[in-house]
């Protein structure tokens, strides 16, 4: 897309309208999770990976499948277990006999070679298997026996984990958590949403019935368009200030933090804020966009002190308070 010739108000309006249409499509399949759906679409357009956390049965896997169906993307699913091996994810070399009778080792791509990969219950996989996702998520490539295999583009990983199960799980290390652009919490739906769930998904899986509303090519165009959103210096400074708020300082709420968010978190914050502005029909990022995306992009990048964890301090509440204070100052 040549920017000079094709960018117009209509482009942005159409992109915003299509994103809202995608959102409404997903809401028709997943009831009571409007915020989660919006944040997931934003992260998708921003080109980041998603970690969802919630109790079983809230529709995490269902949402990922619905997203793949609505966007007409190649979809694969990895159900993590403690005995899952890295090769089960990345792929393996197998011996094949050619037509002329010659035996040859060929790379058989694993489930990670897909546009949208659902890694279900990622915290059940062993650390070795979890780390095999590192290169794929960050470099969008897989190296096997010295040969590098690029992953298809676009490439997204949507991982889920259950926060209440401790036994037989391997919590994700901080380095791998940082690879996820956002960490989304799946909240329990309200009464009206529960009734809607009964209406739409009692006997069928709505995600299997969804028609693609946004072609893959259009998705890539919107991803490109979102990078044209203007981020002013004032917004950049405000984002930096917000990031620094998460770093431990004597006094205030940040004293509960052992480590603050990383610069990668700052990038994630601004990139998702750009898409948030696009969905809301703006050509420029605003403080509202930063505020809206602060919690999803920063909550898994701060580490509480041992004392605060033992005291049961909730990092989400601390971050919410920090963001409010930051917004008053900005």
């Amino acid at each position, binding site marked *: 897309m040549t*920017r*000079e010739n094709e*960018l*117009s*108000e209509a482009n*942005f309006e159409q992109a915003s309208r299509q994103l809202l249409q995608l959102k409404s499509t997903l809401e028709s399949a997943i009831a009571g999770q409007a915020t989660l759906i919006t944040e997931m679409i934003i992260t998708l357009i921003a080109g980041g990976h998603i970690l969802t956390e919630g109790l079983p049965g809230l529709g995490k896997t269902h949402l990922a499948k619905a997203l793949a169906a609505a966007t007409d993307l190649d979809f694969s699913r990895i159900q993590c277990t403690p005995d899952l091996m890295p090769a089960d994810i990345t792929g393996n070399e197998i011996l094949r006999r050619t037509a002329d009778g010659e035996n040859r080792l060929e790379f058989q791509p694993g489930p990670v070679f897909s546009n949208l990969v659902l890694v279900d219950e990622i915290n059940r996989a062993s650390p070795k298997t979890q780390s095999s996702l590192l290169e794929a998520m960050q470099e969008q490539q897989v190296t096997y026996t010295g040969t590098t295999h690029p992953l298809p583009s676009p490439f997204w990983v949507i991982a889920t984990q259950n926060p209440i199960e401790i036994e037989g799980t391997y919590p994700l290390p901080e380095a791998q958590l940082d690879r996820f652009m956002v960490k989304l919490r799946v909240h329990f739906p309200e009464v009206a949403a529960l009734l809607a769930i009964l209406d739409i998904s009692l006997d069928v899986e709505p995600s299997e019935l969804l028609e693609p509303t946004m072609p893959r090519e259009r998705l890539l165009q919107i991803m490109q368009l979102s990078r*044209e*959103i*203007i981020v*002013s*210096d*004032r*917004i950049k400074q405000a984002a930096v200030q917000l990031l620094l708020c998460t770093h431990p300082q004597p006094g205030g709420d940040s004293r509960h933090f052992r480590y603050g968010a990383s610069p990668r978190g700052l990038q994630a914050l601004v990139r998702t804020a750009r898409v948030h502005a696009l969905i809301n029909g*703006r*050509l*420029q*990022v*605003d*403080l*509202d966009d930063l505020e809206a995306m602060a919690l999803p992009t920063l909550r898994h990048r701060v580490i509480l002190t041992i004392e605060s964890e033992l005291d049961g301090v909730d990092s989400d509440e601390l971050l919410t308070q920090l963001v409010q204070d930051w917004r008053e100052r900005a």
Partner: protein
Amino acid sequence: MNSELARKLQRQGLRQRNRIWLNRVLSRAAPLFVYSALVFFLGGGIHQLLLPLNFALIAGIAIVPSLAFVGFLGITQKPESREGAAEADKLFAANSLFVSAWELTRLQSDIMKSDIKGTANLLLERCEKALPDWSRAVTQPAPGKLKPAGLVTVTLAVLGLFFTLQPSHVQPRQTSQASPNASLELANAESAVAQKILSELSATGAQPTPQTPPQPAASTAPADPPASAAAQGSRKPGQPAQMDISASTPAAVNPLPASDPAMTIARTAPASNPNGAEKTTDHSAGNEAAEAPDSGVIEAREYDLVQLVDIETGSDQRSIANDETSQGGKLIEPEQGVLRQSNGNPWRQVSANGFTYMLSPQQRNLVWRYFVQLDKIDDP
């Protein structure tokens, strides 16, 4: 890019920057405004109730520190232009559209401005469309309300200013301790001065209606006031005569022994040095009496001029009395006729209320001072 739009954006940003600047300075200088109001109020109260004060003094104490601090704040608290743009964006509820456009038009160089395309151009177009609404928002600011503290401060300042500018009703301390009846005070003061003068007159030996006024010899005449003043050399020009000076004043007697060379100098100086005598003549008691508007004035002037002529005759030709260019010579010339009538007697005859007195120069001086005191009482 539209340059007119850039100018408008910059103007709005500067306007808001100045507004922030003013608010910042005023908010931080508020305690000093309270101080100024209190000083005005207290100064006005003191001025009206206790002690008359100079307005410039009160105003200086009240205003100068505040002005100095405001000037200091104005220099140190000047906000940056981008703060003004951010404030304008907040005021317009523009969701960062204003500040983004402002940065595009300000931070980019001219070459880059001409190259603004794509989203930036669209953003500027949006900004241009929204600018009229923003301008209306600025031209119709919400009416500000004066807080109670500010109201009290302004009231105190206005009252203090009013009291300070009003003339004080407080009399000077010495008169405020006397009788409240002003006319009675005046009469008492006049009678006191009269009693004093009369007592001094009787002490100096004034005699009513002498048939043959005494003709003291030149050698036995009372000490000539100009000569004695010149000999003493203690009074400065413009200094009034002291009330307790009398003929028996010890200063008239030279305490030095006759054989002392200094005594000879003191006695011979008035006669041999005409300059010294002429200078002391202007400030002597006889000269002061000459300015008084009574009959003794003319006669006293004759007396002074006689002394000048006497000096002139015994002096060299370079005396100031003969100097045509000096004031002394000019004074002498028109009085030649009077000088010839003078007999050199310092005693003068004064008639009042059917009585005739012979007054010496010192007595005439006392009478003149009496009238001067009366004038001061009448017109303080």
